[in-house]
C-alpha cells in the first residue's frame, strides 16, 4: 500500500511518519505513537471517546485521516498535564467523581478543555450541550457537569496559568 509522509506536532512534540492515506488519526495516535489515552468507542462518529484537539478545536479522531493533520498541532489527554501540574479539567474530574470506568474520560475532558477555552463561564445547559457528542455510560453526566464547573471556576480564579491548546 502506498504511503505518504506527514509531520505533525502532538502534545508539543513534532513527529514525522510515513502513513497509509487511509490511516485514521486515532490509530496513528494509538498504534504509531503509542498514545493510548485516546480511546475508540464506536464506528459511526457517535461516542466522542476519541476526541482530541486539532489546532485547538475538538475533533473526533476516528473520523479524521492522519494525513489530514499534516502540519498541524494535536493535543491529546496525555498533553494536558504540564510540569507535573494537572490541568484544572483533570483535577475537576478527580475532585467531583466525574469518571467511573474512565473510558469516555479522555475524550470528555478534551471536549471540556475546548469548551472552557472558548467559554470560561458556561451555564449547566451550555456544558451539557457541549458534551452531547460524548457518550458516557457510567456516570449519568451529573458529576461530569460538576467537574467542568469546578475546572471553570478554577481557571477563572487563575489559580493555574494554563490555557490548554498545544
Amino acid at each position, binding site marked *: 500500500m502506498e504511503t505518504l509522509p506527514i509531520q505533525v506536532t502532538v502534545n508539543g512534540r513534532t513527529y514525522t511518519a510515513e502513513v*497509509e492515506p*487511509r*490511516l485514521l488519526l486515532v*490509530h496513528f495516535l*494509538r*498504534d504509531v505513537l*503509542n*498514545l*493510548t*489515552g*485516546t*480511546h*475508540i*468507542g*464506536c*464506528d*459511526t462518529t*457517535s*461516542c466522542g*471517546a476519541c476526541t482530541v484537539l486539532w489546532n485547538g478545536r475538538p475533533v473526533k479522531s476516528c473520523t479524521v485521516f492522519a494525513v489530514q493533520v499534516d502540519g498541524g498541532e494535536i493535543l*491529546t*489527554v*496525555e498533553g*494536558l*498535564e504540564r510540569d507535573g501540574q*494537572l490541568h484544572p479539567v*483533570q483535577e475537576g*474530574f*478527580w*475532585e467531583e*467523581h466525574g*469518571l*467511573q*470506568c*474512565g*473510558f*469516555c*474520560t*479522555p475524550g470528555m*475532558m478534551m471536549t471540556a478543555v475546548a469548551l472552557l477555552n472558548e467559554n470560561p463561564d458556561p451555564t*449547566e445547559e451550555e*456544558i*451539557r*450541550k457541549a*458534551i*452531547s*457528542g*460524548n*457518550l*458516557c*455510560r*457510567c*456516570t*449519568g*453526566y*451529573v*458529576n*461530569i*457537569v460538576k467537574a467542568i464547573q469546578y475546572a471553570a471556576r478554577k481557571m477563572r480564579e487563575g489559580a493555574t496559568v494554563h490555557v490548554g491548546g498545544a
Partner: protein
Amino acid sequence: MTATAVRGIGMPVKRKEDPRFIRGKGTYVDDIKLPGMLFMDIVRSPHAHARIKRIDVSKALAMPGVIDVITGEELAKANLAWMPTLMGDRQMVLPTDRVVYYAQEVAAVIATDRYTAADAVLAVEVEYEPLPPVLNPFEALKPDAPLVRPDREQKSNHIWHWEAGDKEKTDRAFQEAEVVVAQDLYIPRIHVASIETCGCVANYDPATDKLTIWMTSQAPHAHRTVFSLVTGIPEHKIRIISPDIGGGFGGKVPVYPGYVIATYATLKHKKPIKWIEDRSENLQADSFARDYHIHAELAATRDGKIRGLRVHVVADHGAFDAAANPSRFPAGLFSVCTGSYDMEAAHIQVDGVYTTKPPGGVAYRCSFRVTEAVHTIERMVDLLAHELGMDPAEIRFKNFIQPHQFPYKSPTGWEYDSGNYPAALQKALDMIGYQELRREQAERRARGELMGIGISTFTEIVGAGPSHTFDILGIKMFDSAEIRVHPTGAVIVRIGVQTQGQGHETTFAQIVAEELGIPVEYITVEHGDTDTAPYGLGTYASRSTPTAGAATAVAARKIREKARLIAAHLLEVSPDDLEWKDYAFRVKGAPDRYKTMQEIAFAAYTNFPFGLEPGLEAECYYDPPNLTFPFGAYVCVVDIDRGTGQVKIREFLAVDDCGTIINPMIVEGQIHGGLTMGMAPALFEEIVYDENGTMLTGTFMDYLLPTAVETPHWKTAKTVTPSPHHPLGAKGVGESPTIGAPPAIVNAVVDALSHLGVRHIDIPITPAKVYRILQEKGVAE
C-alpha cells in the same frame, strides 16, 4: 489515629484509580501491544438463519499480510466448534453448516495489522442458503415452527419451563378476589453498550507453555475454569487478566466466540493475537438483555389490599441459552416480583424459547431479571390503584411489608433481610413535595397540559449467593479476599471480584482501613489477575460488596485477632486485657497504653511472641448466609409535549437504601449512572429486527444512548437500614437505580395520560409512540 486520618468506611475518599485514568494512562485491552502481535477480525453472517453451502477463503489467504483464515470446520477438528455456555447450554464458536442469527461469527481472519484483517474479511466468500427466520417466541413455540437448534435432542424451540410460588394458593386468592387487574407487558431486547467494546489479547508462550489472555472479563476466574475445561489445558497453565475495563454492566460476563477463536489462533501460530470488536459487532452479536413477554395479574380486595400475583413469562433467549444466571435459576431472580408488598400468594411461570437472534439474556446492569420483576409489580400496583381510584402512594403504603415483619419470607421463598419501605417512600414524598405536585397537576390538567407523577418503590435482591442455592456451572458463588500487611504497615489486598468502574480499588481499601486503622493511602487493592488474585466469581449482579466486601472485612478481622496477640506481647498484658478502640489495641482502663497496627505489623516480622507464626496475613472465602435486599423509593415528574409526544423528565428524586455506605461519593455516582441506564430503556433504547431478522439498530446512529442533554439532573437521598447478616451491614447498590427508574418513568407518563383512559405503555416510550396515543385520544397539537 482519627477517622479523618484513616478515611475508612463512610468517608467520601477520592478514587485511587483516577490518577491513571485522568492522565490517559489506564490500560484497557486494546492498549496492550506485544511483540509480533497479529490481529484477528471476524466474518459475520448477513442472514438470521441460513445453511452454509461453501466458504472459500482462497482470495483472503492470498492477500499480503494475511496469515490465516479459521473456519468452523477447522475448529471442529480440534473439538472447539462448540463451547459450553454458563447456563449449561452449548453455543457455536464457529459454524460448520448453519448460522442462527444475524451477525453470527462465520470465520476469523488473522493478519499482520487491523486494516489488513478488515480487508480480508471482505474477501472471504461464503455461500448461504437462507432459511426462514424465527423471530417471535410465540411463533417459535408453534409445532410447525422451523427448528432453531436441530443439534438438540429435544425437537422443539422450547428450552425450559420454570416455576416458583404456590399455584393452588394463588388460584384460590384469585377466585376469592374482589378485584383483578391484568396486563401484558413487553420488556424489549436491549444492549448494555459499555463504551469500551469486548476484546482480548491471547498469547501462548511456548517457552513457558503458558497461555495468557488479557480479556474484557467481569469474571476472570470463572472464565479461566471454562477455558481449561474447553481446551483441556491445565488450569495453572492459563492466566486470565482483566485489565482496566471500560464498563461491563453484565455484557462482559459471557464467554464470546471471539475469545475462543483468538485463543485457538495463538495456540496454533504461537504468536499473540489481538481481537477487538467494532461497536456495530458489539451491538449486533454480543449478549443482549431482557426480551421478556410478560402476562401479569394482580388480585386484591376492593379497599386495595393485594392478595395474590400471577405471572407468566415467555422469555426470548435467542439461539443459544447463554445467559449467566445461577444454575438453579434459569429465569434469574425474577421470582422476587412480589416486590415490596406483603401478599398471601404468588405463582410465577417462565418459559425459555429459542429464536434466531443473538444469544443471551444476560444483564443490563441488573442482577438476574430483577428489572423485569420490578417493572412487573410496580406497573401492576399502579394499574390496581387506577382501577380502584386510589392514589399510587396510598396503595403502596397500604401494602408495604412493614418494618417489624423482617426478616420477611416472601410467597416465592425469598427471605428479605431488612427494610423500612414506608420511611423511604415518606421521605421521597416529603422531599419532592408530593401533595403540591398533585395540586399543580390538577391545575395543569384543567388547562389541557399533560403532567404526570410516577412512583416506584422497589426491592432489589443482590449478593448472589449462598452456596446452598447458588452456583454457576457447579462453582459455588462465594467470593474472596486476601490481605497482607507488610512490616511497615503498608497493605496489599487482593480480591476475587473485578472492577469495571465501580471503584473497588478505593472502597475495598476503605474497608481494610476501617478494620485495621491503617490510613487508606497505605493500602493497595489488586484484582483481575487469576495468577495472583484469590478465586472469585467476579463482579456482576451488584455482588461485589455483599460477597467480596464481606470477605475483605472478615479477612481483616482475622488479621486483627492475630494482631491482638502481638499487641499483648508488646504491651506485656494478656490479650483479654486489650480492646480495639479508636483504631488501636488499648489496655482496658489505660487507653493511653496502646499499639497501632503499624507498630504491630513491624513486630509481626521483628518481635513476635514465641510460638506464634511470623507475618501478618489472612484470607477469607466468604459464603454469604443470605442475599441482601436493597430498596428505594423513586419519584419522577414528567411533562409531555402535545405537539411532539416528547416526554421531558422535569424532576427525578431517588431515595435509596443500600445499607451501610462505604463511600458516599461513589454510591451517589453509582446511583446517577444507574438512573441513566434506567431511563435509557424507558425512553430510548430498543434492539429492533426487520422481518428477515436483520438488526436495524446495530450502530450508535440507531441505538440511542442518552447524552448529557436528555439526561436530567438527578436528585438523590438516602435512608440507611443495614443488612443484619453482612459483616459491615452493606447491601450493594450498583443496579438498584437501573431497576427502580423505569417503572417510575412509565408510571409518570401513564399518570400524565390516565385521565384520557391510558392504562399502560410498553417501553421504550418514544415520542412517536406517545404522539400516536395523543392523536388517538384527540389531544395532539
